């Protein structure tokens, strides 16, 4: 019975001491500890949320970059193929122009050659004629030095002339 009967003295001291302990701990220990823990938890949560947001932003940016890259690539391909087309066009044009120019030059050259040939031929003909005349002159001079031969020739010529 003694064991289960609360003693007034101990009840009194326990009450007083416990209340003092409670207020001391509540004010100087639990309050700062709990608020520190809460603050830290909140900051950790914030940090996690921020990290998550940053990750999302990052993936969004990556996606955007990829899209941009794809677009750029497509554009580049387009530009390249156009340039190729243009290049081919230019080459074809140039070839054609060169052909034409070449043909024209050849034509001109041929005309010039023909002209020069004609001139040269005319010249040659003149010279030949002159030479022939000189030769003929010389021959005639030689032949006409004796009389007989002159007569012979005149007769010859007269024979040939048909009246």
């Amino acid at each position, binding site marked *: 019975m003694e*064991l289960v009967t609360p003693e007034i003295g101990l009840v009194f001291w326990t009450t007083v001491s416990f209340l003092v302990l409670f207020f001391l701990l*509540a004010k100087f220990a639990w309050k700062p500890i709990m608020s520190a823990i809460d603050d830290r938890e909140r900051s950790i949560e914030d940090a996690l949320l921020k990290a998550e947001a940053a990750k999302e932003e990052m993936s969004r940016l990556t996606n955007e970059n990829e899209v941009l890259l794809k677009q750029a690539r497509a554009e580049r391909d387009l530009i390249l193929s156009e340039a190729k087309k243009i290049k081919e066009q230019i080459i074809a044009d140039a070839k054609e122009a060169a052909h034409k120019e070449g043909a024209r030059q050849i034509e001109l050259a041929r005309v010039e050659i023909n002209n020069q040939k004609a001139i040269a031929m005319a010249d040659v003909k003149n010279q030949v004629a002159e030479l022939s005349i000189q030769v003929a002159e010389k021959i005639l001079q030689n032949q006409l030095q004796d009389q007989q031969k002159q007569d012979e020739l005149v007769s010859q010529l007269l024979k040939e002339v048909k009246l």
Partner: protein
Amino acid sequence: MYLSRILNSKKIALSLILGVFLTFVTCKTFAIQHEEHAVEASESHNEKEFSPSEVILEHIADSHSWHLWGHTTVALPVILYTDQGFEVFSSAHFEHGHADYKGQYYTYRLVKDKIAIVGPGEELVAGANMLNMHKKLIDFSITKNVVSMWISFVLLLIIFFSVSAAYKKRAGKAPKGLQSFMEPIILFVRDDIARPNIGYKYQRFMPLLLTVFFFIWINNLIGLVPFFPGGSNLTGNIAVTFVLSLITLIIVNVNGNKYYWKHIFAPDVPVWLYPIMWPVELVGIISKPFALMIRLFANITAGHIIVLSLISLIFVFKSVAIAPVSVAFVVFMDVLELLVAALQAFIFTLLTALFIGTAIEEHHH
């Protein structure tokens, strides 16, 4: 519920140990025949028959002096409130109950470590207690339990002020040292005791729950240490558990909202049942903290009794041969009591939180 499973397993363990213990007690008659192996027990130097129950009850009861070791005893101050006025003197005057002390108003005697007034005709008038308040002597002495409680308070203040300082110093950083040891326990009280049972208003009750939890736990642990500064049986003292459960009772009922009181005075039953319901509900208000008081008291006292009984076996058998068995069982019990120390602190705090939770719950049914 997982809680009842813990309680059950503890009951099973206790009954197992008690069973083994009783088996040894039946061997007592056998052991007494081998008295030539008897050792001189320190208590038996006065040739008195060793009485385990007396020794055990003396050890688990409160005392006016603190036995440190050997013949060294610290006399504690005695503060008496009599119908004539206060009396303050040292308990050394009693010379361990061998002498009476003539105070200013009365002559006092130590009877079974309790102070009584010796009347003119040698009749004894015992001091008042909670069951019998109207006496001319009330004992407010600083007893062994009070000193032990103050030691635990100093420990608690040192521990948690330093932890609190660590939080200030390392604001926003990871905990370190003692702080990192205490933080999971504080978070356990918050996340596993307060939050699930009280709900979103838990923050208001955190200081109380933390104080109760650590107060019970550290005093349970101090009670397990067999020598100074341990050795007291504070949380196994009904006065201490009475105060703790009284605080629970007051906190619960002061914070009870209209749903709580409606549940008690106007429950959802036919009106003609009210005369039956009111006494039942009112008993319920008292019985919940009462169960808290008895549970803590009985668990801790039972642990102490078992450990002391196992030690007493050596002196009952008067044989050193039994010592290894005793020590083995005591070690086992001490390990179990380490668990019980934390478990009882947890249960007391959990049930307090649960009662507060039901009292401040917003909507019923």
